[in-house]
């Protein structure tokens, strides 16, 4: 059955997405498409008065991509770029682990529910698409941790 893919947490985020429209001034935007299934996500990144990251997104896609976007916004919103970076790295690492990594709940919180997705190569892109859009939008907004780890603009 599909328990390893569709964790309760995932279904919950899918049915009750968090942080879809945060009021903010967008400093950077990224539109990403999954060419194999046509899923689309747009992520906007802004900056709070305290220099933290603000995230808002629109997502058209499967349960995995929608839930992942919701978890992403919950985890990243209000974090400084320096705080966000290890979370982003941990999520990407988890997705590339082919189910062989024990995720760290301290870092990833609800994100640990996606551990099972990494066993389904065709779904990894679904889980990653919003995170890819986030990274791209951060670069455009220049909201990456200092010193600037550029090179992919």
């Amino acid at each position, binding site marked *: 059955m*599909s328990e390893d893919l569709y964790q309760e947490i995932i279904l919950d985020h899918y049915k009750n997405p968090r942080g879809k429209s945060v009021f903010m001034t967008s400093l950077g935007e990224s539109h990403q498409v999954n060419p194999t*299934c046509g*899923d689309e996500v747009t992520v906007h990144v802004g900056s709070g008065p305290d220099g933290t990251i603000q995230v808002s997104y629109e997502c058209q896609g499967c349960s995995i991509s929608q839930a992942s976007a919701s978890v992403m916004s919950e985890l990243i919103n209000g974090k400084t770029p320096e705080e966000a970076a290890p979370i982003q790295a941990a999520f990407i690492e988890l997705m590339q682990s082919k189910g062989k990594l024990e995720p760290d709940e301290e870092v990833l919180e609800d994100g640990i529910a996606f551990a099972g997705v990494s066993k389904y190569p065709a779904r990894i892109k679904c889980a990653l698409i919003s995170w890819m859009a986030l990274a791209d939008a951060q670069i455009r907004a220049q909201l990456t941790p200092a010193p600037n780890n550029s090179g992919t603009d």
Partner: protein
Amino acid sequence: MFDVKKVREDFPILGRSVRGVPLVYLDSGATSQKPFQVLDAERHYYENSNAAVHRGAHALAEEATDAYESARETLANFVGAETSEIVFTKNATEGINLVAYAFSNATDKARHGLEVDPRFVVGPGDSIVVSEMEHHANLIPWQELCAKTGATLRWFGVSDEGRLILEPGVIDSSTKFVSVVHQSNLLGTINPVKEIMDMAHAVGALGMVDVCQSVPHMPVDVRELGADFATWSGHKMLGPTGIGILWGRNDLLNAMPPFLTGGSMIEMVNMDHSTYAPAPQRFEAGVPMVAQAVGLARACDYLTDLGMHNVFEHERELTAYTLAELAKVDGVRVIGPTDNSERGSAVSFVVEGIHPHDVGHMMDAQGVAVRVGHHCCWPTCKRFDVPATTRITTYIYNDKADIDQAIAGIKDAQAFFGTSSKVSA
């Protein structure tokens, strides 16, 4: 009619389990499985006659050449063509590109004062016509041709029922080429290609039919298509990967500039100038896919033994069943014709409230392999305002039990995502 149970015995992979349950393969529209007879034929070639064809005079080279050219003859007979009209390509995509490049190459050469057949020269003011239900393989090569030459791309639209809308004026005196799909791999629609080819010829344009989804599933005689070119892939008709066919009228093939150039397609070679062999050799540069040609010919024989009329009837019956069973499930919408005439066995659908990826995943968990996505027909999805569909496609080894299993998977998905009150057994 043939015995599906007996047919299944020829396909070792169908005995497999996936995700801990028996495999139900309903993705033959993407690629078919291969009977052991085809695999044996390939292996026999490698273990007995393997050599470079058309390039050697020794015993093995003669045997290999004979195996390769006999395969061409088998393919020709399978679709009512002349042997010299059959060009081996790596897949249908190459076949379509080959024709598209005949236009851009001829156009380039004409610009530099070289003699070319004017039917292949295009530029601003000329149009190329396709449809809104084309596979990307029969769309993007023409977009690229237009980008490179300044010609304009036009297309026939698709009705809500998934039928081509043959509006007058789409094909007109500006039209140089028309290329349409015989059977849509997403909608299942079988198009009136003869009528469309006649429209093309009436204005002096040439025409091609993408027969990827028809040749494996029904009797096709290339002469009856009314077309100048037709192309398909071996891997969708029980054959190996890595081989396809371009059929072209002989006079046209010989009027076209070459596409891939190199060994085995030449007549004379000097450092500064070469001349080329007639078709089909002209279009088969380099050492070709010999073992795959042998395997594909064996696949033709296998299908001929079953009888292509029987194949079509078998799938027609399965399609009727699939459409009927899907109609019974609340919240399922078929994208494509829902009546079983002028349609093939590809049945696409969406399930209300559940993304196709999730539907497919729940079916996969039941061992049911279906395809989800845009099926390389993204514009067709956009036409129907869906991001993607789930698609059932059948072949000679499928039966009603397979469809039942697919329907159960759909109901499972509905139960799991809470979009239906009925929970499957």
